[in-house]
Protein backbone atom coordinates (compact mmCIF):
# COMPACT_ATOMS: atom_id res chain seq x y z
CA UNK A 1 0.00 0.00 0.00
CA UNK A 2 1.26 3.45 -0.95
CA UNK A 3 0.56 6.02 1.74
CA UNK A 4 -0.92 9.28 0.40
CA UNK A 5 -1.53 11.00 3.71
CA UNK A 6 -0.48 14.58 4.35
CA UNK A 7 -1.15 16.54 7.54
CA UNK A 8 -3.44 19.30 6.40
CA UNK A 9 -4.46 21.58 3.55
CA UNK A 10 -1.29 23.70 3.78
CA UNK A 11 0.85 20.60 3.20
CA UNK A 12 -1.39 19.36 0.43
CA UNK A 13 -1.35 22.64 -1.49
CA UNK A 14 2.20 23.78 -0.75
CA UNK A 15 3.26 23.76 -4.39
CA UNK A 16 0.25 25.53 -5.89
CA UNK A 17 1.55 28.75 -7.42
CA UNK A 18 0.19 31.81 -9.21
CA UNK A 19 -1.25 31.18 -12.64
CA UNK A 20 -2.09 27.52 -12.18
CA UNK A 21 -5.22 25.76 -13.43
CA UNK A 22 -7.33 24.08 -10.76
CA UNK A 23 -10.27 21.72 -10.94
CA UNK A 24 -12.57 22.15 -7.93
CA UNK A 25 -15.21 19.55 -7.10
CA UNK A 26 -18.72 20.24 -5.91
CA UNK A 27 -22.12 21.25 -7.23
CA UNK A 28 -23.27 24.58 -5.86
CA UNK A 29 -21.99 24.46 -2.28
CA UNK A 30 -22.59 20.71 -2.03
CA UNK A 31 -19.45 18.60 -1.80
CA UNK A 32 -16.98 21.45 -2.23
CA UNK A 33 -13.41 21.15 -0.85
CA UNK A 34 -13.90 23.71 1.92
CA UNK A 35 -10.50 23.22 3.53
CA UNK A 36 -8.63 23.54 0.26
CA UNK A 37 -10.51 26.69 -0.73
CA UNK A 38 -9.79 28.27 2.68
CA UNK A 39 -6.11 27.43 2.23
CA UNK A 40 -6.04 28.99 -1.25
CA UNK A 41 -7.49 32.16 0.28
CA UNK A 42 -4.89 32.08 3.07
CA UNK A 43 -2.00 31.48 0.66
CA UNK A 44 -3.19 34.31 -1.55
CA UNK A 45 -2.13 32.66 -4.83
CA UNK A 46 -3.46 34.70 -7.73
CA UNK A 47 -4.13 34.60 -11.44
CA UNK A 48 -5.76 31.19 -11.08
CA UNK A 49 -7.87 29.45 -13.69
CA UNK A 50 -10.64 27.68 -11.79
CA UNK A 51 -12.71 24.93 -13.38
CA UNK A 52 -15.80 24.13 -11.36
CA UNK A 53 -19.46 23.65 -12.13
CA UNK A 54 -20.40 26.73 -10.11
CA UNK A 55 -18.61 29.73 -8.64
CA UNK A 56 -19.88 29.51 -5.09
CA UNK A 57 -21.82 32.34 -3.45
CA UNK A 58 -20.49 35.78 -2.56
CA UNK A 59 -18.98 34.80 0.77
CA UNK A 60 -18.48 31.03 0.51
CA UNK A 61 -16.85 28.51 -1.75
CA UNK A 62 -15.09 29.81 -4.85
CA UNK A 63 -16.87 33.11 -4.16
CA UNK A 64 -14.19 33.76 -1.52
CA UNK A 65 -11.48 33.44 -4.16
CA UNK A 66 -13.37 35.74 -6.49
CA UNK A 67 -13.91 38.38 -3.81
CA UNK A 68 -10.18 38.19 -3.11
CA UNK A 69 -9.41 38.71 -6.84
CA UNK A 70 -7.42 35.48 -6.99
CA UNK A 71 -9.20 34.14 -10.06
CA UNK A 72 -8.24 35.33 -13.55
CA UNK A 73 -10.42 32.89 -15.43
CA UNK A 74 -13.44 30.86 -14.47
CA UNK A 75 -14.64 27.83 -16.43
CA UNK A 76 -18.11 26.82 -15.21
CA UNK A 77 -21.59 25.85 -16.35
CA UNK A 78 -23.71 27.98 -14.03
CA UNK A 79 -22.73 31.03 -12.02
CA UNK A 80 -26.11 32.51 -11.22
CA UNK A 81 -25.75 32.56 -7.45
CA UNK A 82 -22.95 35.08 -7.25
CA UNK A 83 -23.34 38.85 -7.57
CA UNK A 84 -19.62 39.60 -7.17
CA UNK A 85 -18.96 37.19 -10.01
CA UNK A 86 -21.40 39.02 -12.25
CA UNK A 87 -19.81 42.37 -11.34
CA UNK A 88 -16.27 41.20 -12.17
CA UNK A 89 -17.49 39.61 -15.38
CA UNK A 90 -19.36 42.68 -16.63
CA UNK A 91 -16.42 44.94 -15.68
CA UNK A 92 -14.02 42.74 -17.61
CA UNK A 93 -11.87 41.86 -14.56
CA UNK A 94 -12.72 38.19 -14.91
CA UNK A 95 -12.51 36.02 -17.97
CA UNK A 96 -15.28 33.45 -18.15
CA UNK A 97 -15.82 30.36 -20.27
CA UNK A 98 -19.28 28.94 -19.88
CA UNK A 99 -19.44 25.23 -20.68
CA UNK A 100 -22.51 22.96 -20.74
CA UNK A 101 -22.62 20.93 -17.55
CA UNK A 102 -22.40 17.56 -19.26
CA UNK A 103 -19.56 18.79 -21.43
CA UNK A 104 -17.74 19.98 -18.31
CA UNK A 105 -18.10 16.56 -16.70
CA UNK A 106 -17.14 14.71 -19.85
CA UNK A 107 -14.02 16.83 -20.44
CA UNK A 108 -12.93 15.75 -16.94
CA UNK A 109 -13.73 12.12 -17.70
CA UNK A 110 -11.73 12.39 -20.92
CA UNK A 111 -8.69 13.61 -19.00
CA UNK A 112 -9.04 10.88 -16.41
CA UNK A 113 -9.46 8.19 -19.05
CA UNK A 114 -6.66 9.41 -21.31
CA UNK A 115 -8.97 10.39 -24.15
CA UNK A 116 -7.77 13.62 -25.79
CA UNK A 117 -11.20 14.65 -27.06
CA UNK A 118 -14.83 13.60 -26.91
CA UNK A 119 -17.94 14.19 -29.01
CA UNK A 120 -21.13 15.64 -27.59
CA UNK A 121 -24.26 17.07 -29.22
CA UNK A 122 -24.54 19.71 -26.45
CA UNK A 123 -24.19 23.20 -27.87
CA UNK A 124 -24.47 22.35 -31.56
CA UNK A 125 -25.90 25.39 -33.36
CA UNK A 126 -25.25 27.70 -30.40
CA UNK A 127 -22.45 30.11 -29.55
CA UNK A 128 -20.79 27.29 -27.59
CA UNK A 129 -19.98 25.72 -30.95
CA UNK A 130 -17.98 28.73 -32.17
CA UNK A 131 -14.49 27.74 -33.23
CA UNK A 132 -15.11 24.06 -32.55
CA UNK A 133 -15.06 21.17 -34.95
CA UNK A 134 -18.54 19.86 -35.79
CA UNK A 135 -18.75 16.27 -36.90
CA UNK A 136 -21.68 14.22 -38.11
CA UNK A 137 -22.20 10.63 -36.95
CA UNK A 138 -25.25 8.59 -37.97
CA UNK A 139 -27.00 11.73 -39.25
CA UNK A 140 -26.49 13.79 -36.12
CA UNK A 141 -24.07 16.63 -35.39
CA UNK A 142 -21.61 16.60 -32.48
CA UNK A 143 -19.02 19.04 -31.19
CA UNK A 144 -15.52 17.84 -30.54
CA UNK A 145 -14.58 18.98 -27.04
CA UNK A 146 -11.08 18.72 -25.59
CA UNK A 147 -10.02 17.00 -22.36
CA UNK A 148 -9.12 19.39 -19.54
CA UNK A 149 -5.46 19.84 -18.71
CA UNK A 150 -5.27 21.02 -15.11
CA UNK A 151 -2.35 21.28 -12.69
CA UNK A 152 -4.36 20.31 -9.63
CA UNK A 153 -7.70 18.76 -8.80
CA UNK A 154 -9.09 19.60 -5.36
CA UNK A 155 -11.89 17.29 -4.32
CA UNK A 156 -13.93 16.50 -1.26
CA UNK A 157 -15.06 13.03 -0.21
CA UNK A 158 -16.91 11.66 2.76
CA UNK A 159 -14.51 8.90 3.72
CA UNK A 160 -11.05 8.15 2.49
CA UNK A 161 -8.23 5.81 3.43
CA UNK A 162 -4.48 6.25 3.64
CA UNK A 163 -4.11 4.61 0.20
CA UNK A 164 -6.14 7.48 -1.26
CA UNK A 165 -9.33 5.52 -1.90
CA UNK A 166 -12.43 7.71 -1.70
CA UNK A 167 -16.12 7.26 -0.93
CA UNK A 168 -18.60 10.08 -1.46
CA UNK A 169 -21.93 10.61 0.26
CA UNK A 170 -25.18 11.17 -1.64
CA UNK A 171 -25.22 14.05 -4.13
CA UNK A 172 -22.02 15.48 -2.66
CA UNK A 173 -20.45 13.06 -5.13
CA UNK A 174 -21.32 15.10 -8.27
CA UNK A 175 -18.15 16.32 -10.06
CA UNK A 176 -15.70 15.07 -7.42
CA UNK A 177 -14.95 11.62 -8.89
CA UNK A 178 -14.41 12.88 -12.45
CA UNK A 179 -12.26 15.78 -11.31
CA UNK A 180 -10.24 13.49 -9.04
CA UNK A 181 -9.32 11.51 -12.15
CA UNK A 182 -8.42 14.60 -14.17
CA UNK A 183 -5.80 16.44 -12.11
CA UNK A 184 -2.08 16.11 -12.74
CA UNK A 185 -1.93 16.24 -8.95
CA UNK A 186 -5.12 15.37 -7.09
CA UNK A 187 -5.69 16.46 -3.50
CA UNK A 188 -8.57 14.90 -1.60
CA UNK A 189 -9.96 16.22 1.66
CA UNK A 190 -12.24 13.90 3.57
CA UNK A 191 -14.52 14.09 6.56
CA UNK A 192 -13.11 10.86 7.92
CA UNK A 193 -9.71 9.39 7.13
CA UNK A 194 -9.27 5.68 7.93
CA UNK A 195 -6.49 3.11 7.62
CA UNK A 196 -6.07 1.30 4.32
CA UNK A 197 -7.94 -1.98 4.54
CA UNK A 198 -10.90 -0.50 6.39
CA UNK A 199 -13.04 0.31 3.36
CA UNK A 200 -14.75 -2.37 1.28
CA UNK A 201 -12.84 -2.59 -2.05
CA UNK A 202 -16.17 -3.01 -3.86
CA UNK A 203 -17.48 0.30 -2.55
CA UNK A 204 -14.61 2.61 -3.50
CA UNK A 205 -15.80 5.38 -5.81
CA UNK A 206 -12.34 6.79 -6.60
CA UNK A 207 -9.42 4.33 -6.50
CA UNK A 208 -6.35 5.66 -4.73
CA UNK A 209 -4.22 5.61 -7.89
CA UNK A 210 -5.98 8.84 -8.89
CA UNK A 211 -5.28 10.55 -5.54
CA UNK A 212 -1.84 11.93 -4.76
CA UNK A 213 -2.47 13.54 -1.36
CA UNK A 214 -5.20 13.02 1.18
CA UNK A 215 -5.99 14.66 4.51
CA UNK A 216 -8.82 14.83 6.99
CA UNK A 217 -10.51 18.21 6.76
CA UNK A 218 -11.71 20.27 9.73
CA UNK A 219 -14.55 22.65 10.52
CA UNK A 220 -16.90 21.69 7.71
CA UNK A 221 -19.65 24.22 7.40
CA UNK A 222 -21.58 22.39 4.62
CA UNK A 223 -23.73 25.41 3.98
CA UNK A 224 -27.15 24.78 2.41
CA UNK A 225 -27.91 27.03 -0.55
CA UNK A 226 -31.67 26.50 -0.89
CA UNK A 227 -33.27 25.13 2.23
CA UNK A 228 -36.58 23.66 1.07
CA UNK A 229 -38.76 21.65 3.43
CA UNK A 230 -42.26 20.29 3.79
CA UNK A 231 -44.42 20.04 6.88
CA UNK A 232 -44.79 16.74 8.66
CA UNK A 233 -47.93 15.07 7.31
Amino acid at each position, binding site marked *: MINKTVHHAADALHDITDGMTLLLGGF*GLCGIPENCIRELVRKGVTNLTCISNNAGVDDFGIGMLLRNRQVAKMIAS*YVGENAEFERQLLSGELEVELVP*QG*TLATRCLAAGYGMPAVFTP*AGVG*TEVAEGKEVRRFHGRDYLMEMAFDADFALVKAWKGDTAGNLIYRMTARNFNPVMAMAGKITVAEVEELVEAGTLDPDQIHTPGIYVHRIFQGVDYEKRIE*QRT*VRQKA
Partner: protein
Amino acid sequence: MMLDKNGIAKRIAREISDGYYVNLGIGIPTLVANYIPNDIHVVLQSENGLLGMGAFPIEGEEDPDLINAGKQTITMQPGAAVFDSAMSFGMIRSQKVDLTILGAMEVSEYGDIANWKIPGKMVKGMGGAMDLVASAKRIIVAMQQVNKAGESKLLPECSLPLTGVRCINRIVTEMAVFEVDTEAGGFRLLERAPGVSVEEIRNATAGKFIAAGDEPEMVL
Protein backbone atom coordinates in the same frame (compact mmCIF):
# COMPACT_ATOMS: atom_id res chain seq x y z
CA MET B 1 -59.07 31.79 -17.70
CA MET B 2 -55.29 31.84 -17.94
CA LEU B 3 -53.55 29.06 -16.05
CA ASP B 4 -51.33 29.88 -13.13
CA LYS B 5 -47.97 28.14 -12.66
CA ASN B 6 -49.59 25.24 -10.88
CA GLY B 7 -52.11 24.90 -13.67
CA ILE B 8 -49.33 24.66 -16.23
CA ALA B 9 -47.56 22.07 -14.08
CA LYS B 10 -50.76 20.10 -13.69
CA ARG B 11 -51.35 19.99 -17.45
CA ILE B 12 -47.76 18.92 -18.10
CA ALA B 13 -48.07 16.12 -15.56
CA ARG B 14 -50.61 14.52 -17.91
CA GLU B 15 -47.83 14.07 -20.49
CA ILE B 16 -46.00 11.66 -18.21
CA SER B 17 -46.56 7.95 -18.73
CA ASP B 18 -46.07 4.96 -16.49
CA GLY B 19 -42.44 3.81 -16.45
CA TYR B 20 -40.94 7.15 -17.48
CA TYR B 21 -37.62 8.51 -16.31
CA VAL B 22 -38.10 12.28 -16.18
CA ASN B 23 -35.77 15.23 -15.74
CA LEU B 24 -37.46 18.32 -14.32
CA GLY B 25 -35.86 21.73 -14.73
CA ILE B 26 -35.94 24.61 -12.30
CA GLY B 27 -39.11 26.74 -11.84
CA ILE B 28 -42.49 25.55 -13.12
CA PRO B 29 -41.08 22.13 -14.10
CA THR B 30 -40.22 21.45 -10.44
CA LEU B 31 -43.91 21.87 -9.61
CA VAL B 32 -44.84 19.11 -12.04
CA ALA B 33 -43.72 16.52 -9.48
CA ASN B 34 -46.67 17.52 -7.29
CA TYR B 35 -49.18 16.44 -9.95
CA ILE B 36 -47.88 13.08 -11.10
CA PRO B 37 -50.76 10.62 -10.56
CA ASN B 38 -50.24 8.11 -7.78
CA ASP B 39 -51.12 5.16 -9.98
CA ILE B 40 -48.18 5.52 -12.35
CA HIS B 41 -44.54 4.77 -11.58
CA VAL B 42 -42.11 7.48 -12.53
CA VAL B 43 -38.49 8.07 -11.56
CA LEU B 44 -37.17 11.61 -11.39
CA GLN B 45 -33.60 12.22 -12.50
CA SER B 46 -31.68 15.13 -11.06
CA GLU B 47 -28.69 15.91 -13.26
CA ASN B 48 -26.38 16.59 -10.34
CA GLY B 49 -26.33 12.82 -9.94
CA LEU B 50 -29.49 11.18 -8.61
CA LEU B 51 -32.21 8.86 -9.86
CA GLY B 52 -35.22 8.57 -7.58
CA MET B 53 -35.56 12.13 -6.30
CA GLY B 54 -38.21 12.43 -3.61
CA ALA B 55 -40.10 15.27 -1.96
CA PHE B 56 -38.54 18.08 0.08
CA PRO B 57 -37.41 16.84 3.50
CA ILE B 58 -39.45 17.29 6.62
CA GLU B 59 -38.27 20.39 8.47
CA GLY B 60 -35.21 19.55 10.55
CA GLU B 61 -34.23 16.63 8.35
CA GLU B 62 -32.49 18.60 5.61
CA ASP B 63 -29.16 17.12 4.61
CA PRO B 64 -26.57 19.40 2.97
CA ASP B 65 -25.23 16.39 1.04
CA LEU B 66 -28.60 15.76 -0.63
CA ILE B 67 -29.75 18.41 -3.10
CA ASN B 68 -31.30 18.62 -6.54
CA ALA B 69 -30.03 20.48 -9.60
CA GLY B 70 -31.70 23.64 -8.29
CA LYS B 71 -29.58 23.29 -5.10
CA GLN B 72 -32.73 22.62 -3.07
CA THR B 73 -32.68 20.14 -0.21
CA ILE B 74 -34.55 16.98 -1.19
CA THR B 75 -35.05 13.35 -0.21
CA MET B 76 -34.57 10.04 -2.01
CA GLN B 77 -37.22 7.49 -3.01
CA PRO B 78 -36.78 3.77 -2.30
CA GLY B 79 -34.72 2.36 -5.17
CA ALA B 80 -32.76 5.59 -5.63
CA ALA B 81 -29.22 5.55 -7.00
CA VAL B 82 -26.45 8.14 -6.79
CA PHE B 83 -23.77 8.62 -9.47
CA ASP B 84 -21.25 11.17 -10.66
CA SER B 85 -21.83 13.99 -13.13
CA ALA B 86 -20.22 12.17 -16.05
CA MET B 87 -22.58 9.22 -15.71
CA SER B 88 -25.51 11.56 -15.12
CA PHE B 89 -25.01 13.26 -18.46
CA GLY B 90 -24.00 9.94 -19.95
CA MET B 91 -27.50 8.60 -19.33
CA ILE B 92 -28.99 11.84 -20.63
CA ARG B 93 -26.85 11.77 -23.77
CA SER B 94 -27.67 8.11 -24.46
CA GLN B 95 -31.38 8.92 -24.20
CA LYS B 96 -32.15 6.76 -21.20
CA VAL B 97 -34.16 9.69 -19.81
CA ASP B 98 -37.58 9.56 -21.47
CA LEU B 99 -38.76 13.11 -20.95
CA THR B 100 -37.23 16.47 -20.13
CA ILE B 101 -39.36 19.35 -18.89
CA LEU B 102 -37.78 22.78 -18.77
CA GLY B 103 -38.45 26.50 -18.90
CA ALA B 104 -37.65 28.89 -21.74
CA MET B 105 -37.30 32.60 -22.44
CA GLU B 106 -38.09 32.12 -26.13
CA VAL B 107 -39.04 29.28 -28.48
CA SER B 108 -38.99 29.55 -32.26
CA GLU B 109 -41.54 28.04 -34.65
CA TYR B 110 -38.88 25.47 -35.61
CA GLY B 111 -38.39 24.38 -32.02
CA ASP B 112 -35.24 26.36 -31.28
CA ILE B 113 -34.99 27.36 -27.64
CA ALA B 114 -33.26 30.21 -25.79
CA ASN B 115 -33.10 30.10 -22.03
CA TRP B 116 -29.60 30.79 -20.74
CA LYS B 117 -28.35 34.25 -21.53
CA ILE B 118 -29.44 37.86 -22.11
CA PRO B 119 -26.40 39.59 -23.64
CA GLY B 120 -25.16 42.46 -21.50
CA LYS B 121 -27.76 41.78 -18.83
CA MET B 122 -27.68 38.26 -17.48
CA VAL B 123 -24.85 35.75 -17.47
CA LYS B 124 -25.96 32.86 -15.32
CA GLY B 125 -24.85 30.11 -17.66
CA MET B 126 -26.55 27.18 -19.31
CA GLY B 127 -26.05 24.63 -16.54
CA GLY B 128 -27.26 21.31 -17.91
CA ALA B 129 -29.86 22.79 -20.26
CA MET B 130 -27.75 22.56 -23.44
CA ASP B 131 -26.97 18.92 -22.78
CA LEU B 132 -30.60 18.15 -22.03
CA VAL B 133 -32.10 19.82 -25.09
CA ALA B 134 -29.44 18.37 -27.39
CA SER B 135 -30.02 14.81 -26.23
CA ALA B 136 -33.50 14.34 -24.82
CA LYS B 137 -35.85 11.97 -26.61
CA ARG B 138 -38.76 14.28 -25.89
CA ILE B 139 -38.82 17.79 -24.47
CA ILE B 140 -41.72 19.78 -23.07
CA VAL B 141 -41.29 23.47 -22.44
CA ALA B 142 -43.17 25.09 -19.57
CA MET B 143 -43.30 28.84 -20.12
CA GLN B 144 -45.36 31.99 -20.13
CA GLN B 145 -46.75 32.78 -23.54
CA VAL B 146 -45.98 36.50 -23.23
CA ASN B 147 -43.30 38.38 -21.32
CA LYS B 148 -43.89 41.16 -18.80
CA ALA B 149 -43.97 43.73 -21.60
CA GLY B 150 -46.82 41.77 -23.20
CA GLU B 151 -44.71 40.47 -26.08
CA SER B 152 -45.06 36.91 -27.32
CA LYS B 153 -42.22 34.51 -26.49
CA LEU B 154 -43.33 32.13 -29.28
CA LEU B 155 -41.38 33.66 -32.15
CA PRO B 156 -40.54 33.16 -35.85
CA GLU B 157 -36.97 32.93 -34.60
CA CYS B 158 -35.27 33.43 -31.27
CA SER B 159 -33.64 36.81 -30.63
CA LEU B 160 -31.60 35.60 -27.67
CA PRO B 161 -28.56 33.27 -27.83
CA LEU B 162 -29.76 29.74 -28.48
CA THR B 163 -29.67 26.86 -26.05
CA GLY B 164 -30.56 24.30 -28.70
CA VAL B 165 -31.76 23.98 -32.27
CA ARG B 166 -34.97 22.28 -33.52
CA CYS B 167 -35.37 20.31 -30.34
CA ILE B 168 -38.64 21.40 -28.69
CA ASN B 169 -41.59 19.10 -29.31
CA ARG B 170 -44.25 20.53 -27.08
CA ILE B 171 -45.02 23.77 -25.23
CA VAL B 172 -47.45 24.32 -22.40
CA THR B 173 -48.22 27.94 -21.51
CA GLU B 174 -50.83 29.75 -19.41
CA MET B 175 -52.99 29.88 -22.57
CA ALA B 176 -52.45 26.70 -24.55
CA VAL B 177 -50.74 23.46 -25.45
CA PHE B 178 -48.75 23.46 -28.71
CA GLU B 179 -47.01 20.88 -30.83
CA VAL B 180 -44.01 22.37 -32.62
CA ASP B 181 -43.49 21.41 -36.27
CA THR B 182 -39.69 21.34 -36.34
CA GLU B 183 -39.71 20.38 -40.04
CA ALA B 184 -42.06 22.86 -41.72
CA GLY B 185 -42.09 25.31 -38.82
CA GLY B 186 -45.10 26.41 -36.80
CA PHE B 187 -46.84 26.27 -33.44
CA ARG B 188 -49.72 23.84 -33.87
CA LEU B 189 -52.47 24.50 -31.33
CA LEU B 190 -53.60 21.33 -29.53
CA GLU B 191 -55.59 22.55 -26.54
CA ARG B 192 -56.80 25.82 -25.09
CA ALA B 193 -56.80 26.85 -21.45
CA PRO B 194 -60.38 26.86 -20.15
CA GLY B 195 -62.23 29.88 -21.50
CA VAL B 196 -59.37 31.16 -23.67
CA SER B 197 -60.27 31.55 -27.35
CA VAL B 198 -58.27 30.53 -30.39
CA GLU B 199 -58.11 34.20 -31.37
CA GLU B 200 -56.63 35.23 -28.03
CA ILE B 201 -53.97 32.54 -28.40
CA ARG B 202 -53.29 33.52 -32.03
CA ASN B 203 -52.77 37.13 -30.91
CA ALA B 204 -50.25 36.02 -28.30
CA THR B 205 -48.24 33.94 -30.81
CA ALA B 206 -45.72 35.88 -32.88
CA GLY B 207 -44.44 32.86 -34.84
CA LYS B 208 -46.43 30.87 -37.39
CA PHE B 209 -49.67 29.79 -35.76
CA ILE B 210 -51.51 26.68 -36.93
CA ALA B 211 -55.03 25.95 -35.71
CA ALA B 212 -58.14 24.29 -37.12
CA GLY B 213 -60.31 26.50 -34.90
CA ASP B 214 -62.02 23.70 -33.04
CA GLU B 215 -59.25 22.82 -30.60
CA PRO B 216 -60.67 21.56 -27.32
CA GLU B 217 -60.18 22.97 -23.88
CA MET B 218 -57.61 21.27 -21.68
CA VAL B 219 -58.70 18.62 -19.24
CA LEU B 220 -56.85 19.34 -15.99
